[in-house]
């Protein structure tokens, strides 16, 4: 019970017989006998979908989903319109694969073309790819591009980048041999070294403490040192703030989860990647371009394929093959839903909720700002009790209080947070800190 092979026993027999075989086991005679599993896998037998759904609902019930979310750190609790979910999960998008045959894949290709356009606009750069895995691995790809472009192995990595993203960068640097130099923050902003010859600067905008980095300054440092400026951005910020591209970023990466993807315990999310046109031949991942068919009709196709691993093999710009297309389609739909006015409004509402939360917390005795730099939708506070303890105690009050950091807590608010929720949150914090 439970398997999804449609063949009836009779059909199996007929097919086997037509090949001169008499049992399914004979299909595996090429496998040396010693390697064949004698007694099958040590897994329970299959079950009906109803039994499985019941079990997984029970498992899911052992997560706390009732907590009102003030955590961010690259994963934000946004409202998702019904229309976005329903259209994005149409089975044509869900059950297709990479558009190898463009003639029957114009749906996904055009959606990706629109997605690329939107991400390019959000980043302020000329070209965006069709997705990478997530924000963290997009940083890795950005560094690889920069090192290849500059021929320099040294990367200045701002401490303002999310800690897990920095970890990821370091993990992959063990393979590429890049020299990752940590650059500390000072009062919430990156304090770039005076000297050095980095191939790249990687800075986050706003950074992990929510502070808005000085990208003009970063650009100057990049110009002075001859490095490329890589910016990991919060794409929602572009609804309110100038784009990283407008400050002169060479590569912009980011996490696209805020555009229509639920928190999902961290995945699948969406790695955003955009760069200046001059770097397009080093772009990792897929790129969709507009062209025409033999009858001259507008058509879309994956292009500049010679960068990619399936053609370029060991010399490819990246090893990425399967990426996050469906999540990119989700983002394209969500961004279409928001539109110009909606994106602005979304950013404003995040910023307002964040400011109101910040003011409410700072009104509590013993709560201090962790940095004085301006923030957008996330901010950090110093607390008299350590962050982990606060998160545990606040969970008892019904809140996911934020993300603990050295000496404090990083708190995020989105358009989903209301005054009454924020007031209750501040009251609970007051209680917990007493």
């Amino acid at each position, binding site marked *: 019970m439970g398997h999804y092979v449609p063949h009836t026993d009779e059909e199996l027999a007929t097919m086997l017989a037509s090949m001169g075989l008499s049992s399914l086991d004979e299909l595996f005679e090429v496998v040396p006998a010693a390697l064949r599993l004698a007694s099958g896998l040590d897994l329970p037998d299959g079950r009906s979908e109803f039994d499985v759904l019941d079990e997984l609902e029970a498992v899911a019930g052992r997560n706390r989903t009732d907590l009102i979310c003030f955590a961010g750190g690259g994963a934000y609790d946004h409202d998702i319109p019904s229309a976005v979910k329903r259209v994005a999960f149409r089975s044509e998008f869900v059950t297709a694969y990479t558009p190898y045959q463009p003639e029957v894949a114009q749906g996904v290709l055009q959606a990706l073309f629109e997605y690329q356009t939107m991400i390019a606009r959000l980043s302020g750069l000329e*070209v965006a790819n069709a997705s990478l895995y997530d924000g963290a691995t997009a940083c890795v790809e950005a560094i690889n591009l920069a090192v290849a472009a500059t021929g320099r192995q040294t990367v200045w990595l701002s401490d303002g980048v999310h800690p897990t993203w920095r970890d990821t960068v370091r993990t992959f640097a063990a393979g590429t041999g890049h020299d990752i130099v940590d650059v500390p923050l000072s009062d919430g902003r990156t304090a770039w070294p005076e000297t050095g010859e980095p191939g790249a600067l990687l800075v986050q905008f706003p950074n992990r403490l929510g502070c808005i980095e000085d990208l003009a300054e970063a650009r100057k440092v990049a110009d002075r040192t001859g490095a490329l400026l890589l910016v990991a951005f919060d794409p929602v910020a572009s609804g309110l703030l100038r784009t990283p591209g407008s400050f002169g970023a060479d590569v912009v990466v980011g996490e696209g989860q805020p555009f229509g993807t639920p928190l999902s315990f961290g995945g699948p999310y969406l790695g955003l990647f955009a760069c200046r046109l001059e770097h397009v031949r080093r772009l990792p991942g897929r790129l969709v371009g507009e062209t025409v068919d*033999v009858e001259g009709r507008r058509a879309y196709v994956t292009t500049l394929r010679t960068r990619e691993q399936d053609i370029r093999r060991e010399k490819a710009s990246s090893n990425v093959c399967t990426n996050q297309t469906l999540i990119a389609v989700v983002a394209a739909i969500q961004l279409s839903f928001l539109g110009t006015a909606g994106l602005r409004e979304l950013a404003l509402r995040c910023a307002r909720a964040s400011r109101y939360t910040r003011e409410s917390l700072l009104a509590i005795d013993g709560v201090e700002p962790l940095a004085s730099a301006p923030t957008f939708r996330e901010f950090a506070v110093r607390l008299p009790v350590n962050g982990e303890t606060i998160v545990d105690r606040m969970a008892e009050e019904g809140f996911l209080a934020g993300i603990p950091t050295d000496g404090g807590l990083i708190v995020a608010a989105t358009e989903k947070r209301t005054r*009454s929720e924020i007031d209750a949150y501040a009251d609970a914090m007051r209680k917990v800190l007493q």
Partner: protein
Amino acid sequence: MTIAGGRATSIPLMGRDEEPTIFELSAPGRSAARFRDQDLPEWSAHELVPADLVSEPLHLSEASERDVVGHFTRLSHRQYSVDLGAYPLGSCTMKYNPKLCDDVASLPGLANVHPAAPAHLTQGWLELLVGLGDALCEVTGMKAITLQPPAGAAGELTGLLLMRAWHEAQGRQRTKVIIPDSAHGTNPASVTLGGYDTVTVPSDERGLVDLEALKAVLDEDVAGIMLTNPNTLGLFEEEIVEIAAAVHEVGGLLYYDGANLNAILGVTRPGDMGFDIVHMNLHKTFAVPHGGGGPGAGPVAVSERLAAYLPGPVPVRTGDGTYAWSTPERSIGRVHGWHGNTLALARAWSYILLNGGDGLRRVAEGAVLNANWVREQLRGHYDIPFDRPNMHECVVSARNLKKAHGVKALDVAKRLLEEGFHSPTVYFPLIVEEALMIEPTETESPQTVAALVEALIRIAEGASEADREAPRTTPVRRVDEARAARQLIPTFDARP
């Protein structure tokens, strides 16, 4: 052979009318967005952030909910997919994914959990991940696993970094990784990113790794070898035990590219063959839908001696039956910003529960049966470079058609689109001229496989110059790929 019952045709019922971009459907000032009542002070942009940072509203599209829904619904009608028909794309395992898995991925108890929430608030998720990890270890015959890698290629690179860390811990400097000439492009690309040089070994006349040629390149510089088994020709590496012994003898490790794991589920296991590191493509073997090119998931399982190096944190079951995160002693570090493509992992877990141990073996049987049957039927119509029992896919060649009629593998692929099927993978593996790599998968019925074979035979028998005109019935006709690269238009704003 005649099989009783009707044919499940797989005609792509897709329209042929152009759809404007969402930008062209825009009208100034329109928006679908509406927001929750926050009841907060309506601070203006300038009150919220320093004035010099505030931009003009960024221009996106401007459409109503009705037009957004209409636009993307129409686009979906221009897209072939598994749910519309057969999709025998070799190496990709485009099987039908039970719809139950979609419902699992939509469970609010899974979807509405912040990844930074501590373990005691997310016991359900940790339990799920531990259950999946254990099952995948059992399926592959390995001892420990990381679920972080978000796709196969990410798994490969993770595996190579594990290999590197292990060798370094043994105090060895190794420089080379061996791959067969039939390997997938991600293998060499990952090798480079892992900081190794690629050494290619040829396949022999059976289509298998040439054991002697392999031994000839094995030395103390070899960090390891990457293999798929069955390989990309769909053939089982029968000398895998000997290969493993030879590589292990020089201190190398064996890496298993799990793209083809679907073929051997419940039949044999990479661990038993001698592999040290295994990645799985859950989007191929464990029914995570392909999403038009992702998301997937590429967990990496390892043998005992490599467990301490896995990326962390890994979810574990503690003595008191609760679940916790734990970072392996010598972890290479994270390979994903959070815990991997978690909702895809949940889908895979539900697929394993649905099928069970018995069902997973049936998957392999069905896949191998269908693929062998295809090869048998195509004999005489297409060249079969390695005509021996294959596993879950078979590779044939259009060389005969090219010689006789100038009809290439690409033309066959485009003709097949007209016949209502997605085409096989073409021109891969590179070692087969005019390759057509056909993977019917186990979810296609005998009737559908028969219809596919008939279409391929019809194409071979009718092969002519006119095939270069194909496809003629698709939403667009043959697309000018050269022009796309020459006159690059990567965004709507770059249009001339």
